[in-house]
């Protein structure tokens, strides 16, 4: 079991039937395939209605797949033993309002098979971890949305699961809380836990995720490491030089597809489009010939958001 992926999805389809007599068909997942290795932080991205939550619910057995297969920690999706090793933080979760944080942890701990003593023992440190140590005995009716989100995270982690599935975990959490949550997730990863994040906040995902997948209208558009998704198809090198403006303009004019931008007095940024290393070398030589001083040189990248929007745009354009 331990050799298997944490999440393994093959050609997963889910079609909802809607309307009178179920005559309207809504394809929430259209043949999705993905895998999440153990110990990694995986981000599932996609616009609203992409099928992200449906995919998670299929993994947890709340929704039955129409076709395809999915497994969680080596067990079929929805398997009760598999769920024992999963901690889930749903989007817009609702913890029964008659609880305090302590009683909620005791209740959900017992649902996960923990004894009351065990749940109580873990509660203290968990509330400390999520920043609710002072609020354990307070009715959750008095909690803010961010506090409820922190408590939800504590509930997901309570039984020390191997896999955490977090649906919009930073929803309603303030920037400090987000930072703390990032640290927490990285610590969990360091402890060998697998984390499956579903989020709209691409900056957050970019900061913590090892790999991501982009889903749109039930279809898998791309998946891979963030560096792979954000890298341009053609190598671009960003070069910052200092020297005479005429010399810089002349050098830029000699190089194909080179763009120049003034950064400051006698300081310029040149974006070199170079298909290979020799083209880069030639460009650098040309700059040196113009007596320009090389201040910095780095490969150019796009943000995850740019990459995400670009991928979506291309996918929808093709359709």
């Amino acid at each position, binding site marked *: 079991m331990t050799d298997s992926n944490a999440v393994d999805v093959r050609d997963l389809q889910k079609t*909802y039937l809607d309307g009178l007599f179920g005559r309207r068909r809504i394809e929430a997942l259209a043949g999705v395939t993905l895998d999440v290795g153990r110990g990694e932080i995986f981000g599932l991205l996609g616009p609203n209605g992409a099928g992200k939550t449906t995919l998670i*619910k299929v993994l*947890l*057995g*709340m*929704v*039955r797949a129409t076709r395809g297969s999915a497994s969680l920690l080596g067990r079929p999706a929805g398997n*009760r*033993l598999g*769920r*024992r090793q*999963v*901690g*889930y933080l*749903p989007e*817009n*979760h*609702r*913890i*029964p309002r*008659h609880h305090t944080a302590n*009683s909620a942890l005791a*209740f*959900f701990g*017992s*649902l*996960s*098979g923990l*004894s009351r003593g065990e749940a109580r023992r873990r509660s203290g440190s968990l509330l400390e971890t999520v920043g609710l140590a002072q609020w354990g005995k307070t009715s959750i009716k008095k909690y803010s949305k961010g506090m409820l989100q922190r408590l*939800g995270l504590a*509930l997901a982690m309570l039984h020390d699961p191997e896999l955490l*599935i977090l649906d919009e975990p930073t929803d309603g959490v303030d920037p400090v809380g987000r930072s703390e949550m990032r640290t927490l997730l990285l610590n969990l990863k360091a402890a060998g836990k697998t984390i499956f994040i579903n989020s709209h906040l691409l900056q957050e995902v970019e900061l913590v995720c090892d790999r991501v997948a982009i889903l749109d209208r039930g279809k898998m558009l791309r998946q891979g490491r963030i560096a792979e998704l954000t890298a341009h198809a053609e190598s671009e090198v960003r070069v910052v030089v200092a020297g005479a403006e005429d010399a810089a303009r002349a050098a830029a004019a000699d190089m194909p597809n080179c763009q120049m931008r003034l950064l400051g007095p006698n300081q310029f940024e040149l974006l070199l489009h170079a298909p290979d290393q020799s083209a880069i070398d030639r460009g650098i030589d040309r700059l040196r010939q113009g007596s320009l001083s090389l201040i910095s040189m780095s490969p150019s990248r796009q943000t995850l958001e740019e990459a995400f929007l670009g991928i979506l745009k291309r996918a929808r354009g093709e359709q």
Partner: protein
Amino acid sequence: MRPYLSIIRDSFHEALVSRVLWILLAIITLILLALVPLGFIEEAGSYLADEDIVDRRQLVRKILAQGESQEPSPGRRIWELLDDSNRRLLSEYDDASMGRRRTIHRLVESLRDMLTQDDFYRAEDWAKVRLPKAARDLQTQGLENLPQDQLARFNRLALDAAFPEEIAPIPPTQVQLAYFHWELGLTLPVKPEQLFPAINQLLVATLAILLGVAGVFVAVIVTSSMIPQTFDAGSIDLLLSKPITRAGLFLAKFVGGCAFIAINAVYLIGGLWLILGVRFGLWNERLLLAVPLYLFLFAIYYGVSSLAGVVWRNAIVSVVMAVLFWFACWVLGTANDAVEQLALNPRRIVTIVPAGKDLIAANTVGEVFRWDEVDSDWQPVFVARSNERFPFDFGRSLVGPVYDPQGERILAFERRGPGFSPLGGSTRLLVGKRAEDWRRDEGVNMPDGAMSLLLGPGDKLFAASAQGIYRLEGDLEARQEDINIFGVRIPLPEQGGRFVNVGPDVQFRPPQSAAIDADTGDIVLFDGFRLVRFEADDEGTYREAAEATFDVKLTGEVAITGGDVYLALDGEVRRYDAELALVETVESVSRSNPGSMTVSPDGRVLAVLYRDGDLWTYDCRAHEPLAMSITGQGDVSSVAFDGSTMYVADRVTRITQYELADDSVIGRRQGALPLAERIYRYALHPLYTIFPKPGQLNETVMYVLSSNDTQLGALRLDDGGNGPQRLDVWGPIWSNLVFLAVVLAAACVYIYRKDF
């Protein structure tokens, strides 16, 4: 199991945190606190009620006579203590036509006042009266030393001794209902224990309203949000991600919801139990069994509410569905009963008479029909003339008809029930001859109090009554003339045939059942306490040949064949020999009282028809029950034999004919169904059958409280000597349990298949 126990425990937690629970508990506390001061004050018996004056006229006359006399006497003493207006009322008692009851009431009120006075009794006034021992004992203690209730008792005993024929004696104790120490003015001359059955009944009625209606309604409203909230998006996601099953989650939540009402029910019923025990001395631990029963009642409605909550996830819809369910149950039950009572039962065939080549049947209201093969329907015959029926003469019922093959005629008579009968006069034997197409005609007068009509050997006609056995002598069709005086018919002396008393000369209680041996002419009568076999001597006079007696009154039917006498009772049939020595007791299947017992002409097959519509057959030769396959069991209303076949009536007007040799059905007669019956049979009754009957659980509560599975006397009178009606104690439990299981299973299946 731990997760599910946690869910149940969490429901308790939710209930405890809920303000609604505390509000309900506070209301129950107020109710209980309000009841705590209620209790009995037991005191020496002295209370004089209007009903204690058993001979009013005589009492008034005695008081008047003694009052006018100068000689000291109790009446004289009473007269002295009466004020002028009461004296005048008493003096005018005989002349007053309408105000006598008021006079007695005023006299009793005055006497009650006198009984509390320490100078009511004066030895010289009671000089000629011997006081009872109880009064003498009190007297020896010194009347001036007696507390008020003992003094009143002494005075009452003295009054009873003075007017023993006119005033009912007072029991040693009386109880007074009190609130704190305030007497509520309801004095009952009984011991507290004698009031316990009444208290139990009052309790059942109170609980039926307080818990059965109001409590359940409040509970459904309060708990209606629990299931929808659990299955709300956000909540259910958290719960279903845990290693628990969906059905387990739902059922645990359902049980948890019941826990909410359990807290209230335990508190209310436990409190009532304590109050009854401490304040009234009625420690009825069976009352505590009402807790699970009312919890079960709630569970039925909550099951419906929960199913709606799972499907629609809306608390308001849940409540509305529970209320609609209650309303549907009520409407169905009421409509079903109404159609049965008003449209079906009057038409139900209760007598089948194979009359040669014709088949005659009579229904509950005494209408007689002949089966018409051509029209395949029942045609009315033997129709009463319009002037024979008084529109409100409900007390009448038709006895018979029986078929006299020799005369090719059917014979019957109308029995008058107890009470008012505006037509008055005597009852005539009714005769319908085949030759006259069964036209009804009047024959000889029936003996007074005739209960049944028996056709003996040689087609001799007998009638049984409380006065004995009567045999028809002469021409039964010889019509007697009578004169009509102010609507009362008085018969002139017999001119033709008549019923002659042929014994016995002893008074009998009104017989429940009578039967005649078709071969020997022996007659058996059963009156509940005695089973007697009569046999005729050479002159045809019937004498008591054997007798069996019973300590308690039984309800049953008798039959006699082949020298054996059969007595069918609830759940058993006893076989006696000719000397009425018990030979064996055979268990029958039914749980209600028998309505009739019939023997086949060859004496082999005995058929017992029970009041709940079950037909049980017995082989009188093999002495073992017959395993006949009879359709319509539970709805059978009549049975009759004809040669080697048996007719069984069910479904109101359907008659099925069986071949006794092999149980095969050889004919079926079903008349045209009126619209009301069609609606009942194909829509209303099937729906009613599958619907639960939560309202009937009150019968179970009554049984639990009283441990008596018959309707209590105060609630239902004896049904004409046929014994009290049995309560269906466990039926509602089973039917409701099945319904609850179906509802919960439906909810579980829905949840199992649902994508959340």
